Each structure stands twice: as C-alpha cells, then as structure tokens.
C-alpha cells in the first residue's frame, strides 16, 4: 500500500534531478571525490587486520555444522558493513548538512520538487555510493578466495537491499538530529552494531538475552543475508532477513519525507 501511495506522488524526472545535484557536486571539484573514496577503506582494513590477521591466531571456525576459515566468516560481514557505512555516510552527515546548514532542501522545495522526491532521490544516491563500495569489496573477496564468483554476483543485490535499509534509517535519524553532538551518539550506536551483529563472532555464542537483542537490530539481518549468499547457503531464513530490511527501508523513507514536510514546509 505504501508503495502505491509513494509511486502515485513521485515523479521520476524530479527524483532524477535530486540525484543530479550530487552528480553535479562530483563535477564541481575534487572535494566530494575525496569524501567518496575515503569511505571505502575502513571495512577493507578490518578485513585485513582482523579477518586475516586475527584469523591466523583463531584458526578455523565451525558454525551450524559448517567449518570455514575465520577470514571467510568475517569477509561477508565486512561486505554488509561496507554497504551500511556507504549508505549511512551519505544519509546522515551529508543529508543532515544539506538539511540543516546548507539549506539545500529549502532551496529545492521552492521548485516543483516534493519532500518525498527529495527522500527517494537522496536514498537512490546513497545506494549508488554504497554499491560502489560493495562492488569493489566483492572483487577483493573473490581475488582473495573468500567467495565464489557466482555467489559474489548473487550477494550484490543483497548489498543493495542493505544499503536501502540503512539509507532509509539514516535519513529518518538525520531529520531528528539536533546538532553535531547527536552524531557522536549515533557513531557509538553504529560501532556497537559493527562489533556485535555476528560480524566477528557467531551470535549463538552470546547469552540468550543478548542474542535476542542483537536479532532485533538491522545489521544482524544484513550480515546473515549477505553471509548466506556469499557462502551459497540458501535457506528460507534469508527471505525473512530480506523482508526485515525492505520494511526498514520503506519505513525510513516514509518517516523522513514526513519529517521533511514538518520541518521545512511550515
């Protein structure tokens, strides 16, 4: 229902123009390229230091009866993290800056463009950015022998979905941010997700209460979905993770466009 509601009010041309603004920023000089490229390295560095480095100390791992190297356990998680951080960087820092300080959206809303079109356009752009990271990351994984090429291709759309979910969430959160101090709070939350979402150790190893708590949070579902596909383990559970992420994406966009209307159109 939400989809039809959104579709009836969204003009592809105007969404394209919102995306075009970010392409224009890339055309306008090197500063945005630097922002774009720097975001790629963090998950890769974790993969090398912890996945490969710590992995040499840990040895092989057995999860759900399957034995694998520690690096191939960590790599899909870092892939999911890379999709998350690409989308979040765009929809939190950049989005917030455009909303609050540069007044970009205020200028846009004086044109025929509507709040929902801003939200959708910015989300699509966040996915483009996130997908750039994940595509390169998948190539690295295949090159390091951490994923089969066929399954790597299968995992790519899943990373797009992860980007959508975190992009929607990021935008929704951004519309509630009061100032930069809230970004510290968000950074801490993001880091906690990064450490505990089954990224570096299987969630089954935690006490039951903690495990359930983790299973409510989004990165857990992202990691499980992406890991399943990277390892070629197709289970019905993957569908559940996908539904969770899609719902998060939809709710995020809906909430963000409502908040934009409240904040900017009063």
């Amino acid at each position, binding site marked *: 229902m939400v989809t039809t509601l959104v579709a009836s009010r969204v003009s592809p041309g105007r969404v394209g123009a919102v995306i075009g603004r970010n392409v224009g920023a890339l055309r306008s000089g090197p500063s945005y390229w630097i922002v774009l490229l720097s975001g790629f390295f963090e998950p890769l560095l974790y993969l090398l230091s912890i996945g490969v480095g710590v992995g040499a100390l840990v040895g092989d791992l057995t999860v759900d009866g399957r034995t694998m190297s520690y690096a191939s356990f960590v790599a899909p998680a870092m892939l999911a993290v890379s999709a998350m951080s690409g989308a979040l960087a765009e929809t939190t820092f950049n989005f917030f800056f455009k909303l609050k300080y540069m007044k970009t959206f205020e*200028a846009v809303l004086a044109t025929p463009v509507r709040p929902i079109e801003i939200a959708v356009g910015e989300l699509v752009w966040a996915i483009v950015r996130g997908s750039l990271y994940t595509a390169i990351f998948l190539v690295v994984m295949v090159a390091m022998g951490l994923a089969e090429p066929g399954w790597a291709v299968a995992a790519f759309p899943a990373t797009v979905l992860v980007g959508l979910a975190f992009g929607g969430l990021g935008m929704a959160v951004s519309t509630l941010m009061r100032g930069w101090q809230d970004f510290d709070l968000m950074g801490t939350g993001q880091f906690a997700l990064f450490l505990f979402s089954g990224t570096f150790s299987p969630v089954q190893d935690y006490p039951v209460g903690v495990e359930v708590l983790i299973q409510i949070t989004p990165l857990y579902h992202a990691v499980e979905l992406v890991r399943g596909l990277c390892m070629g383990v197709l289970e019905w559970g993957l569908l559940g993770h996908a539904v969770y992420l899609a719902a998060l994406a939809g709710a995020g966009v809906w909430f963000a466009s409502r908040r934009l209307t409240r904040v900017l*159109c009063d």
Partner: protein
Amino acid sequence: MADQPLIYARGLVKRFGEFTAVDGIDLDVAPGEAFGFLGPNGAGKSSTMRMIGCVSTPTTGELRILGMDAVHDGPRIRARLGVCPQLDNLDPDLTVRENLVTYARYFGLSRAESRRRADELLEFVQLGDRAGGKVEPLSGGMKRRLTIARAMVNDPDLVLLDEPTTGLDPQARHLLWERLFRLKQRGTTLVLTTHYMDEAEQLCDRLVVMDGGRIVAEGSPRSLIETYSTAEVVEVRFPGMPEAGPRFAAALEGVGKRVDPLPDRVLVYVDDGDAALAEIHRRGLEPSSVLVRRSTLEDVFLHLTGRTLVD
C-alpha cells in the same frame, strides 16, 4: 488571464501553535505589477511570502496564485514561480554555473536547455567570468545576483524576493535594483519584502504596510505619503535637548499638522516647509539646526508602525 489577479488572498491566516504570524489579510496583485510588503521584523511578511511561494500551508483563508489553489496545486504553481529567499541558500558544493544548471533540472528542463539558460542568466547578472568557480569566494552582492539568476531559471511569471538587498553595499544595491527594474520592464510580476524605504519607493508600484500580522495601510508610495504624512518635514534641533525637548515640542504645537518629538530632534509635519520655518522664528524660537525635507515613506512607516524597536 489579464483581468484575473496573479495573487488573490482573502482572510489569509497563518498560526504557529499559539502564535498568529499572519492575522487575516486580503491581497490582489495584478500581472506585471511590482508589489511590496513593508513592515518591521515579525510583522508577518516572510510568513506571507512562504504561503505565496506554496511552501507553507495557510492555516485558514483562501489563497489563489496564477489562478490555481495554493494548497492543492503547489507543484504546478511553484513551477511558474521564482523565489529569492532572505538568506542565500546557494549550494556551496557546486560551481556557480552548476548551481543554475542543477536548479533548472528541478523544473524538468532538459540538460541542454538548462545549460543554455544558465549561461544566458550568468551574463544577465554579470557573473559570466565566475561561472566555473565555487560560490564561497563570491561577495555578498554577487551571491545575491546569483540567487536572483537562479530564481529566473524557469522563466517565471512571478518572482518573490524576500529582502533582496539586505546587507549589501550601495553599489551592489543599485546594480540589483537596475536588474530588477529590467525584469519588471519585461513584464515579470515582482513581489518583494523590504524594510528599506528607498527600495520600496524605487521598485514598487504598490505596497502594503504590515504590522502585527495585519495590513495597516495600502497604496502607491506617493499616495501613502499623501495619506499618512504631509508634503514636507521640518527637522529642528535645540540647545539643551533631550531635557528641553518636551518644552520645545509644546512651543511648536500648531506650526504644522503634527509634531513628533524625538530624543535628539523635533519633527514637524507641514505642507510648506519655508512658511513653517518663518512661523518658528516668528514665535521667537531659535533652533541650533534646521532641515527642511520632503516627506518619505519612512515617515509613513514610522507613523504607522511606531518607533518602538521590534526584534
């Protein structure tokens, strides 16, 4: 279309919670007119502009822009408006030219057409040589001109300017006025807010004075002066002011139509300045300085909205 007002408002109200920013105003702006909102800070000018710009929704009342309903036809109306906001919101991530091209795309113009318009408008506002540079190093006047160029990018029927020259130096203001005058000559309808009286006299065919969310006066600059002020004003200073002010003000009573004692001088509103001056001397008063000048909109404004500082 010709006999239909471009802006038609009846009983327009905007409330923010308990606070009433616009308290039931009526407006009719004709095509091709240059229309001004004058008023102190907090008078409701910007709130009215945001409603006309179809960004903010009226709390109650009827508002039709270009013959369409402001609430239901927002995007269609905005497609034909140009908006120059009070604070520049140019995009610092984009070059000067890219600011215009990107903005044109929001109106659904093709990329080629957007580029053509951008180059043409950069010439119009004399920024052609800055096209490839960033926005940040531009002066205040240049930024303002770029914002106006951006407001023109969709070839609008109606241009809304919220305090277009606030904070600019005299040269920049005059250049901007000249460009706005040329827009007006082309038949573009201009609606602007200002608290510069000279700006209102320069640009506006007709204006309203707002105070406390209401319209307190309406007319052409000349008719407002005729209605709410006198032809001339005599400004006199006396030794011993401000303490002696009230005494001199009382002594000046009857010289003109109205006496307005200020801390540093007394204003006497008169029809004939020289005759008034002769009367002042005849009463044996000896001012330390005298200035006879024509009445301006500023006199009207201060008479209507008072001298109390509003922040």
